[in-house]
């Protein structure tokens, strides 16, 4: 098998809080191939952002990666000295965030903030060259009047434009992997569509792999090749978007899909009963079983493995222990 661009192997990220250990990421294994776009989906607090932060090394205290390995391009990020890792950050792996309004430094012009990434990772580049490249990046991400915008401050730009600046900053060094942490959540729907469109174009044009973290299945359907569904720090289901949308595996994924509002339907919107469990007091057995409509006695005792439902489609549910599993009612 070809080596994946990003391989996260049995990653454990723990927050050492006063009330106890919070295992935000609890044995997550994810692989992203070069040029591929992969969605990580789940509710708030399921550990999807923390997985990304662990890759980037941006965890805030008291969070810590305390198990597992992360490989990028065949090199182990988790064993790299910080200085060497920083040479990859913003250069080969870059990240855009959920909050375009606050993710840019308010007292530095947006142009300088983009230029900074270039100068940092290209020792021999002159300021003028860097400015030229930054302006090109501005045009690439569709910022109108790029020359004028270059010298403006973040507060003079709208949310959509700021997110375009963030994308320009992330793409300017030509990264192999772009991690997008809910890049459109804070934007309104029309801007969201524009930004997704832009990201898809860039991804196809530059061949950048994208790790798209979202809670929006619509975004995944539109944007991603493959999909990982996370719940309470674990991957519950993984497979191609086509496969999962055609033949959903895990009861949790099924619940998520039924929770998407349908404009035609007159029925009350479906919701998954119960609440996301507290990460401090996880249920024994399968994490989802208290909320699952198919749960069996066994689910409350044992934790299921990832079972292969069909080639390349894995589900963490006992229903799939024998391959395809029984048809769900």
């Amino acid at each position: 098998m070809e080596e994946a661009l990003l391989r996260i192997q049995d990653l454990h990220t723990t927050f050492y809080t006063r009330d106890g250990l919070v295992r935000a990421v609890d044995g997550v294994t994810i692989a992203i191939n070069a040029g591929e776009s992969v969605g990580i989906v789940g509710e708030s607090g399921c550990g999807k952002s923390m997985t990304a932060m662990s890759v980037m090394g941006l965890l805030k205290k008291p969070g810590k990666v305390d198990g597992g390995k992360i490989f990028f391009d065949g090199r182990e990020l988790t064993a790299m000295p910080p200085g060497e890792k920083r040479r990859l950050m913003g250069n080969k792996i870059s990240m855009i965030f959920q909050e375009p309004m606050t993710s840019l430094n308010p007292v530095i012009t947006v142009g300088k903030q983009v230029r900074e990434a270039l100068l940092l990772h290209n020792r021999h580049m002159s300021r003028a060259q860097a400015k030229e490249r930054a302006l090109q990046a501005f045009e690439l991400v569709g910022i109108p009047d790029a020359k004028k915008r270059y010298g403006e401050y973040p507060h003079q730009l709208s949310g959509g434009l700021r997110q375009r600046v963030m994308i320009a900053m992330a793409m300017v060094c030509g990264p192999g992997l772009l991690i997008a942490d809910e890049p459109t959540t804070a934007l309104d729907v029309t801007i969201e569509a524009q930004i997704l469109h832009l990201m898809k174009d860039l991804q196809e044009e530059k061949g950048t792999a994208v790790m798209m973290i979202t809670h929006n299945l619509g975004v995944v359907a539109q944007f991603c090749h493959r999909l990982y569904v996370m719940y309470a720090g674990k991957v519950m289901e993984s497979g191609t978007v086509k496969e999962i949308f055609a033949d959903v595996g895990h009861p949790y994924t099924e619940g998520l899909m039924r929770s998407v509002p349908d404009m035609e339907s007159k029925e009350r919107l479906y919701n998954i009963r119960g609440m996301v469990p507290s990460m401090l007091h996880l249920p024994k057995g399968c994490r989802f079983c208290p909320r699952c409509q198919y749960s069996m006695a066994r689910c409350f005792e044992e934790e299921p493995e990832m079972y292969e439902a069909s080639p390349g489609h894995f589900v963490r549910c006992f229903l799939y222990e024998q391959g395809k599993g029984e048809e769900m009612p």
Partner: protein
Amino acid sequence: MLKYITKRILVTIPVLIGVVFLIFVMLSVVPGDPLTVMMGEKVKVDVIERLSEAMHLNDPWYVRFGWYLWDALHGDLGTSYKLMRSVSSLIANAFPKTLMLAVTAAALSWIIGIPAGIISAIKKNSLADHLFMGFALCGVSVPAFSVGMVLQNMFNGILPVSGFSSPKHLILPALVLGWNAAGTIARLTRSSLLEVLEDDYIRTARAKGLAPVSVILGHALKNSLLPVITMMAIQVSSLLSGAVITETLFSIPGVGRLAVDAINSRDMPLLQGTVIFTTAVIIGGNLAADILYSVVDPRIRVEGGK
């Protein structure tokens, strides 16, 4: 930008006039006859009458206020009853001493306070942090007179403890004032920097691959110093208007001492003059802070002007 500054300067004029008015009224209602203060109890009646006429003392208060304002606009703040010299020249004489003390104390507080605050924030909860913050807390909370007296006792014989005749005389009083100011600045810098380090754009800067030092110096510091600049301007203006206690304690003939002397001898024109001078300096300091702030923070620049 220029429009913003002009606007800010114009706004200070009514404030200044209002303050002069308040001080004038307050000091007018204080009991006591200025002529008695000037010449004692035994003065002939016709002398009093003549002088009252000459000094406009018989006029109603609003007429006197008019005169006072008119004279003040021409730089004449009246004549001291006790010292028989013009108030303006007395202040002009005292101010250089206050200025020297203020500049030394302020410089001391910035050189020590800002780096201490930065180190404390970066090495939060370390020994250095606790040490710096302990010193800062003492500087902020121990009153100037006790710090001053302790220092006078400690350095008696080593450094001059009173008077103002050589640069050496500056050391102890500047230390008293500077310690206090440095404490405030260090604490503010620390808390502000800690807050800024939690902001989203710091995460962006780190995600870019910047080293921690560059993140702090390049992205966090400028933002975190915004409130510190305001504090520094307020401190400088309050230092410039005369440190009453410290100047008295170290017998420095500055503006603060002048005010205290004026109160002790019920020298109304002198007191009025020093208070107005203090007000003007503080208003000027706030103005400087506003302008400086708008230079550093582009968000204010755009809202206020253009």
